[in-house]
């Protein structure tokens, strides 16, 4: 950075230090550019501080206790004593270690770190407002700017997050003590993951969902095992209800939900308008609102560079992650596409490389996604229907975990691996997994799709025995019609 009298010059200014932004800044610095990363809250962003990482820590810790107390068939009788405060402290330690790591990596790569809220102050200029009274602001002049401001939870009218009993996902993952009961509004992946954790820890969980299914958007045969197991944990699903309001009542609150007679839309957008129909009331301690996330752009003062978000609040980008303004890129949750940390990181790398003049582009064939419910769900590429719609003749192969030796030895053999390929050429097009370690298993199939591998390639690759990973090979063999450990159709 060149510090002048009034402002600082940098090649690449990155706004937002989440998994998109910090990766972009490091990559830019690796390529010899002067990179400045501006973060107004915590390095690592939502993912490391309030999302992926803390939720995974709590899910795993909870599973340790839950599995131990549910292993009678293995001859294990235990009643673990869970100190939730200590569990949270452990989770916080993991988060601290990772965010500290991000900061160290940035510094080690020569990235300039700046705390504050960045907004555009005209072409090629950012104003960074420092937190705190009298801290003032400073100006950064940039050659390229990468916008990586991420997203925030969508608020449902009547359930503003500033009220104590109302929680967003971030607050739910930062509770220091467990409520006796909770109403979770929204059965998307965030609602389902947190509901599962709380139910396993003994909280009385009610899930209120406007649509008539959990994890809408995933194929039914993937979500069915999840919903069943959740019900087995005592989670009460209330479908077709829209949370409407809450009132204080004694020690707790009462959440009111309206019957949703309208055509269910795919994206639950509670708009608070009165709907004809029955009203249901739920007595509870807290309400977690997890109906989705929306991009954050209002902090940026986009007018200063004549940039406008599209109708869903995102910044349109081309296949180099560029916005309509030549030297401004947008990556991650503010850019189009699924809101996923790994997609943000890849976009960050591409944006940095493009800024450095490299021939980079966003031309990946598939983005994997995972839901850390019990059992886990993971998908990559196309489903059978999507493949047909794209004009392929799909060849589908399935391998159930109950036929997997390794799955049986873990005591968890529910679910299956399914691969979808093009019948004629054998090219892998997609995969869907529900079951143990689905989130890990999907990686191999992502690589296969990206490499343009065929069913033959996957089937002919020797997989370690006994592992869950063999299931991908078996599914590919099944698609080819010569499965060994499951019956061919």
């Amino acid at each position: 950075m060149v510090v002048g009298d009034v402002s600082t010059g940098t090649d690449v200014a990155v706004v937002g230090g989440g998994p998109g932004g910090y990766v972009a800044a490091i990559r830019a610095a690796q390529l010899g550019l002067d990179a400045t990363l501006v973060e107004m809250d915590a390095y690592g962003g939502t993912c490391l501080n309030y999302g992926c990482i803390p939720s995974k820590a709590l899910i795993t810790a909870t599973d340790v206790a839950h599995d131990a107390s549910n292993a009678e068939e293995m001859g294990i009788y235990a009643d673990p004593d869970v100190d939730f405060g200590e569990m949270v402290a452990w989770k916080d330690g993991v988060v601290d270690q990772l965010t500290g790591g991000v900061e160290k990596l940035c510094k080690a790569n020569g990235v300039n770190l700046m705390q504050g809220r960045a907004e555009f102050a005209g072409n090629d200029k950012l104003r960074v407002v420092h937190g705190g009274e009298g801290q003032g602001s400073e100006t950064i002049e940039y050659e390229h700017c990468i916008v990586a401001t991420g997203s925030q939870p969508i608020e449902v009218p009547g359930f503003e997050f500033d009220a104590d009993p109302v929680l967003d996902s971030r607050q739910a993952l930062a509770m220091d003590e467990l409520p006796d009961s909770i109403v979770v509004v929204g059965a998307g992946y965030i609602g389902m993951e947190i509901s599962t954790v709380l139910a396993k820890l003994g909280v009385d969980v009610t899930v209120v969902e406007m649509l008539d299914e959990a994890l809408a958007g995933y194929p039914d045969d993937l979500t069915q095992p999840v919903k069943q197991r959740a019900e087995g944990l005592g989670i009460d699903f209330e479908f077709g209800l829209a949370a409407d309001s809450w009132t204080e009542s004694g020690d707790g609150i009462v959440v009111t939900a309206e019957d949703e007679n309208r055509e269910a839309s795919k994206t639950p957008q509670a708009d608070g308008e009165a709907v004809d129909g029955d009203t249901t009331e739920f007595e509870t301690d807290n309400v977690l609102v997890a109906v989705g996330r929306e991009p954050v752009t209002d902090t940026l003062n986009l007018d200063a560079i004549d940039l406008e978000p599209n109708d869903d609040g995102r910044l349109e980008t081309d296949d180099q992650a560029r916005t309509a303004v030549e030297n401004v890129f947008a990556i991650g949750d503010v850019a189009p596409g699924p809101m996923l940390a790994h997609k943000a990181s890849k976009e960050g790398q591409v944006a940095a490389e493009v800024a450095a003049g490299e021939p980079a582009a966003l031309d990946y064939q598939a983005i994997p996604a995972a839901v850390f419910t019990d059992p886990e769900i993971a998908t990559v590429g196309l489903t059978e229907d999507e493949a047909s719609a794209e004009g392929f003749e799909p060849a589908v192969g399935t391998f159930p975990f109950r036929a997997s030796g390794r799955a049986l030895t873990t005591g968890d053999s529910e679910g299956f691996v399914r691969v979808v390929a093009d019948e004629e050429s054998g090219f892998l097009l997609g995969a869907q997994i529900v079951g143990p370690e689905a989130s890990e298993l999907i990686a191999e199939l992502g690589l296969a799709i990206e490499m343009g591998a065929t069913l033959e390639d996957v089937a002919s690759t020797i997989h370690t025995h006994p592992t869950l990973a063999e299931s991908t090979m078996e599914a590919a063999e099944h698609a080819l019609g010569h499965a060994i450990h499951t019956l061919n159709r």
Partner: protein
Amino acid sequence: MAREFKLPDVGEGVAEGEIVSWLVSEGDTVTEDQPVAEVETDKAVVEVPAPVNGTVRTLHYDAGDVVPVGDVIVTFDVEGEAAESESEAAEAAAESASEEATEAATESASKSATEQASTRTFAPPSVRRLARELDVDLDSVEGTGPSGRVTEGDVRAAAEGHATEPQEEPPDEVRSAVEPVGEQAAEHTEAETPAVESATEPAGRETTLAAPATRGLAKELGVNIHDVPAVEERDGEAFVTAEAVQEYAEGGTAAQGETAAAAPEREREFVEGGETTQPYRGVRRSIGEQMAESKYTAPHVTHHDTAVIDDLVETRTKLTERAAEQDVKLTYLPFVMKAVVSGLQEYPILNSELREDEEEIALKQDYNIGVAVATDHGLMVPVVKHVDQKSILDIAAEVNELAAKARDRSISREEMQGGTFTITNFGAVGGEYATPIINYPETAILGLGGIDERPVAEDGEVRAAQTLPLSLSIDHRVVDGAEAARFTNHVMERLTDPELLLLE
């Protein structure tokens, strides 16, 4: 089954092509390899063959449209057979919920809404990156890997312009993909023989040969090109020039006995608001873009000098007959090329390329000399490879062949690539000195003026001597003026005393 046919990269690594004309109509039955469209790219007019037997369902563009390589231009209904998925169209893109994760996979997350769902090209990320590096449109590369996966080799081949042909076997009758433009000798200013046609009434032909720009002009002026009296015949077909179209539109007669190139600028009528426009695209635009890139990237300096070449004139005259015995027309150019290579061996910095991003100057070990050729469809630079290893006669034969190919547009992309230094012979048309623009990313270009008798002062006397003016432009980022001068001196020495070339 429907099959969507994308505009292929016609083996030239170009980004777009102009559809000059459709050779089929919707509803027509076509056989595999039957030409369906004439497409003009930066380099040539090519006929695009049908990939399958079937019927034409939809033509997606009109003649005159400029289409990016890889865009679907025709939808065929394929006879009987199940169409290859590689080229299957999505009849209907599934409307799927815009829920986060499942969608992720199918959408290229960052592309704007103009998504083409139809086909997919299978290639690993490393190959995709290579394609971007080499500026190859992956979707138009024919994969030779397992099940048609695109390999690194396929991309490299496409970049070098000999992409694997879709069909394994050559068709029975090897069609030239290039619009025939007749035989022309490798001379700059020879007149074409016009076939005189009366122009008083519409000619009303079935087929007419014309450059795309001419067709565009006819369209603009509302003239049916088949009615324009032909200026000449080429390959037995009527050939029409832009002037003839203009002439016909104005109700006059075609200029007779004039070559298109030498036709005088027609008197412009300054009607208020009146003008004709010519499309700036295809070959014209790619020349323009290259010129601008060179001029705005490399700081040009031009060094001028004049070589006295009495001996060379004599030598060439002597050798012309010998060459003629072998059916080779011997010009001065091969001698100059040999002298230039000698100079480049002595001063390798002029045989180089600056790679700014890599912070390096690449000194080329090949001596591949480009020769700029003016054709009636724009400037082309065929490259004679390894001039250092070839005899003057070989070079002469090759230059003549390449120049002829450039003029009749049968030259391949490969034959115009790989140059390390360029010579432009503007003197063939006339003139003494010029300031040639470097054929970027090369770092030098030698312009040759006209060979003529000029006064030369020697030993206190002025005599008329055969002289050759030389204009050497250099990229001053790489080459210093003194080096340019020394190089020119070295070349001149060998032109003045051609026997020195025997020692090379």
